[in-house]
């Protein structure tokens, strides 16, 4: 039986952070074997050990007072913001139509973020044990946030349509098919960001 060890959790978190840095943000001068080989290994081992340690750790007062849906909303907000920021940072590469290598690199990193998100969400959900995770209040909050997300989606889409329709052709040279595809993806991500932000803020306000 695995026991909670704060020292082991700290080391696992450090390994995860170092792995994340190596894979996602380390400079190109570092050799690929170190970046992707050692980086992926540290990320994988660190994340799995962190997950195990979090799974066996006792619930904190914060966790007891926070609903599963609120935790899910904060987590989604964080990861969707990270994905959006990562895509925005890669816009110069995307603008020229990504080469196969660039596209593969972006795809692998996005996949790693998604896996990381799924693992953390599953661990935090598992820590709650066999209790009700969602009820009518959660669904009511979700329905209100859904309305905000629909509004944001409509607003961004109309903005995009107006910009494309009303701009002179010489100012739309950037609008390659790839860039337009990513603009639409950003619209979807914005709506999702708004939805999760509204959910998180509503829960937070209720706790005050």
């Amino acid at each position, binding site marked *: 039986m695995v026991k909670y060890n704060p020292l082991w959790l700290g080391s696992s978190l450090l390994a995860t952070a170092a792995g994340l840095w190596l894979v996602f943000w380390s400079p190109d001068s570092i050799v690929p074997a170190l970046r992707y080989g050692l980086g992926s290994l540290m990320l994988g081992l660190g994340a799995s050990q962190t997950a195990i340690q979090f799974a066996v750790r006792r619930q904190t007062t914060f966790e007891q007072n926070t609903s599963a849906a609120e935790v899910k909303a904060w987590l989604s907000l964080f990861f969707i913001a990270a994905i959006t920021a990562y895509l925005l940072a890669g816009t110069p590469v995307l603008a020229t139509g990504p080469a196969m290598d660039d596209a593969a690199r972006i795809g692998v990193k996005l996949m790693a973020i998604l896996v990381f998100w799924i693992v953390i969400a599953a661990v935090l959900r598992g820590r709650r044990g066999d209790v009700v995770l*969602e009820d009518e209040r959660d669904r009511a909050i979700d329905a209100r946030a859904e309305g905000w997300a629909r509004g944001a989606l409509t607003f961004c889409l109309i903005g995009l349509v107006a910009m494309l329709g009303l701009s002179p052709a010489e100012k739309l040279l950037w609008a390659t098919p790839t860039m337009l595809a990513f603009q639409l993806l950003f619209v979807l991500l914005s709506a999702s960001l708004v939805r999760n932000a509204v959910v998180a803020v509503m829960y937070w306000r209720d706790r005050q």
Partner: protein
Amino acid sequence: MTGTPIANEIRRWRFERGEMTQEALAQACGVTRQTIIALEAGKYAPSLELAFRIARAFGVGIDEVFRWKTE
């Protein structure tokens, strides 16, 4: 979810039922503990079904647990 016209006596009834915990009441009603906290703080108005479930958990009528604030 703030500002509801419905007041409740959930906290009082919990104590009158042998200091029933929020967790126990939540389990009895099939909701999360956070919903019971929001109800007690007057930040959420329950559905009719949940109001009946809560009243049944205390073994009293619905009007003994919930009332309009103006009354």
